[in-house]
């Protein structure tokens, strides 16, 4: 057991990619649509603001984790607020990861049903996705990290695909005048893009696994955050100048529509190829949630953890059986986002404040 712990470590380099893969997922495809609902042509500003908000949270996490360098999120809660309250909080944390994971899977299935396999039943797709996810999530974090690093090369390919779309007609008028939607609407847009950036909270679970020197971690996660913010902003910007607000309202996945416009002598529908490749980043987000949810059960033994992953995968499958209707999903999305705000923003901040006030850190005895 001891040996397993020491070998199951990740480097900061791997942490960078773990975060990127956790955050970038299914949400990107529909992000321009979601952001422009309130922020209109200023959607790209919203994303930058969301990035700033994430950065603030990362600093909060950093301060908190520095005090408890070998503990995970769910262990810190117990340490700070005591065993009983901590367990209660952990239930919320567990539910959050399961529900967000479930939501990500549902959206994944929806995209596949809409674009690739219109007639295949959703549960079949769900079964396949979750099989792959469970297969990776039961392994050690270092193996998950290996795969995520590998999968990031796909994101670069996708970025390259988007470059191809530069040559479709563009209209800068759509984003002008800058700031015309008003601060309130831009902030509302930030709210939407913040949801797309979720996944960085996995840091609270990755942190204890980072190899020895934890000094540069804040720098690493900040660079990861910068990368993702720029990545999202870039995609939103390029979509905003390609389509008018009216068009965007009618598009469910504007990024795919953007690529649909490209056509070559050899390949006609770049969007389908893009979506096929994009499945991997979508699945990696689910894997992170599955990992975090199973870790949040605080299981000591490796074997128990594996069983938990399989069990949680089964629960995720059940969640995806929810009728695939837009109204239900929107409602589900809304509740999950409230829960996420609590788990991702509120609880860690409270924990930090409490641990500072009560002068608690890892060495102090838990009640």
């Amino acid at each position, binding site marked *: 057991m001891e040996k397993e712990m020491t070998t199951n470590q990740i480097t900061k380099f*791997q942490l960078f990619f773990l975060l990127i893969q956790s955050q970038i997922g299914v949400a990107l495809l529909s992000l321009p649509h979601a952001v422009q609902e309130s922020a209109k042509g200023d959607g790209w500003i919203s994303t930058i603001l969301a990035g700033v908000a994430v950065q603030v949270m990362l600093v909060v996490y950093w301060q908190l984790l520095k005090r408890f360098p070998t503990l995970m999120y769910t262990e810190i809660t117990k340490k700070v607020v005591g065993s009983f309250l901590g367990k209660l909080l952990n239930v919320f944390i567990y539910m959050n990861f399961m529900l967000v994971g479930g939501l990500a899977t549902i959206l994944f299935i929806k995209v596949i049903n809409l674009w690739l396999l219109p007639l295949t039943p959703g549960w079949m797709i769900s079964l396949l996705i979750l099989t792959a996810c469970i297969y990776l999530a039961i392994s050690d974090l270092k193996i998950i990290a290996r795969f995520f690093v590998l999968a990031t090369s796909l994101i670069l390919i996708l970025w390259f695909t988007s470059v191809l779309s530069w040559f479709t007609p563009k209209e800068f008028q759509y984003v002008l005048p800058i700031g015309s939607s008003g601060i309130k609407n831009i902030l509302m847009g930030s709210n939407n893009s913040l949801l797309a950036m979720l996944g960085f909270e996995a840091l609270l679970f990755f942190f204890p696994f980072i190899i020895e020197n934890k000094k540069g971690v804040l720098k690493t996660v900040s660079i990861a955050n910068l990368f993702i913010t720029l990545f999202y902003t870039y995609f939103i910007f390029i979509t905003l100048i390609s389509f008018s607000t009216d068009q965007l309202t009618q598009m469910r996945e504007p990024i795919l529509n953007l690529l649909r416009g490209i056509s*070559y002598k050899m390949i006609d529908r770049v969007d389908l190829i893009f979506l096929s490749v994009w*499945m991997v980043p979508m699945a990696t987000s689910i894997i992170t949630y599955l990992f975090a949810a199973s870790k949040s059960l605080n299981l000591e033994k490796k074997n128990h953890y594996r069983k938990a992953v399989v069990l949680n995968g089964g629960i995720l499958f059940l969640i995806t059986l929810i009728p695939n209707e837009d109204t239900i999903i929107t409602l589900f999305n809304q509740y999950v986002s409230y829960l996420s705000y609590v788990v991702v923003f509120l609880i860690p901040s409270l924990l930090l404040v409490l641990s500072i006030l009560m002068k608690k850190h890892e060495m102090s005895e838990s009640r």
Partner: protein
Amino acid sequence: MSFSNKTGQLSNNIERNIKMLEEHFCHTDDLMKKELAMAKQKCVILYLDPLVKKELLQTSIIEPILESEFDDIEQIVHAAEVKKTTLISEVGKQLLGGFCVIFLEECSEAYTASVGGIEGRSIEEPNNERNIKSSHDGFVEEFSSNLQLLRKRIKSPYMKVKYFTIGNLTQTKVGIVYLENLANKELVVEVERRLSSIEIDQLYSTGDLEELIEDHPFSPFPQNLATERPDRAVSYLADGKVTIIVDGSPRVLVVPITFFAFYQAPDDYNSRWLVGSFFRVIRIFSFIVAISLPAIYIAIVTFHSEVLPIGILYSIRTSLEYVPFPPFVEALTMQIILELLKEASIRLPSPIAQTIGIVGGLVIGTAVVDAHIVSNMMIVVIGFTAIASFVAPINEMGTSARLLGFPTMIAATLFGFFGIVFVLMLIFIHLCKLDSFGTPYFSPLAPFKKEELKDSFIRLPLWKLNTRPTDAKPAYANQQGRARAWKRK
């Protein structure tokens, strides 16, 4: 387990000793006995007929004994190795190893002297790992020849050999070879542990041993590299890896190994580095083609024909027009025909194999299309895939890739692109999970090591390769100084 319990002490009585030995060998007819008169004593020589060299026995044992004037056997006999023993089981073991035994009258000790010499195959270029520009010798069945091929290339006192005997029945000699100052200690200990823990009656070949020591027996990927090329084995020794030689098998195992090693060939280093790198990239490409090309074709034809522009789609559709089967059946038929052809021709003498090639390639190939069983396009796709799968310099990997093409095809038939990505994801996750003797199998891509890319995907010029590959965790990394020092003057 059969004869190890026959432990008997030798006695003073020579007749009894001989009888004991004959009983030990169950009165076999090839146990030869020759009585000689030495200066003062009577002595008897026994040996197993097929295992000794007659001339050697004559010149180094029999003649000196007959001409001798004193008694000390160890000084009379000219053999390279002379041993003394009192145990009948030890004598038996030596006889099986090509020794002859000399019993003396009134003496409870037996002398064994090496007169062995089994004629082996001469060293020739291995058939299944041909290379154009590298050396043309290959490992053979005989243990000592193989060791010699390695020693010849690395003249270092640090090259260490350790012997193991595996198989209660076959008593197969297995040796691990490594560089004492370079190989990782933990790795060596682990290899020794795995080898010495094997309990088996018969071990015939390297393939058997491979299955006994690999980490993940259910994986489709080979996790030890078996090579017949000494130059290849030596290059791994110099990386700090361990090679395992099995007596009687011309394939030498190398552990630990990574995925990309299977797509490298010694020729890469004898070409210019750009050429070598180009071929490596082509080979990696061949792996991807071999596992996914038929699947992509099936997915496009059955699910996503909109991906193709109308021109190409039209030509594919016309070739599919009269074919009554779904693309998957077409692909499966062609793959099976191909495998059958390969299996049929592989063991036949080459003139007949050529006939099979003509019948298979020309007759079946064209007739199948004319009969509208398989479309033209599918023949192109399967042909391309087959060629790609044979590109891998180590055959096992190519076969694995071809095998993995089937699940991808099935998934593509059922779920189109989604299915392909699903299976590819599983394959790559599996590759990330695999390890060989504690080394990540898919290194240097997973875990990503920037430094290692220089000699895996591509091959940089030799003078750039200042450090060894680290996947075997060698004791020190530096492998050269300023390789082009003349340039700096």
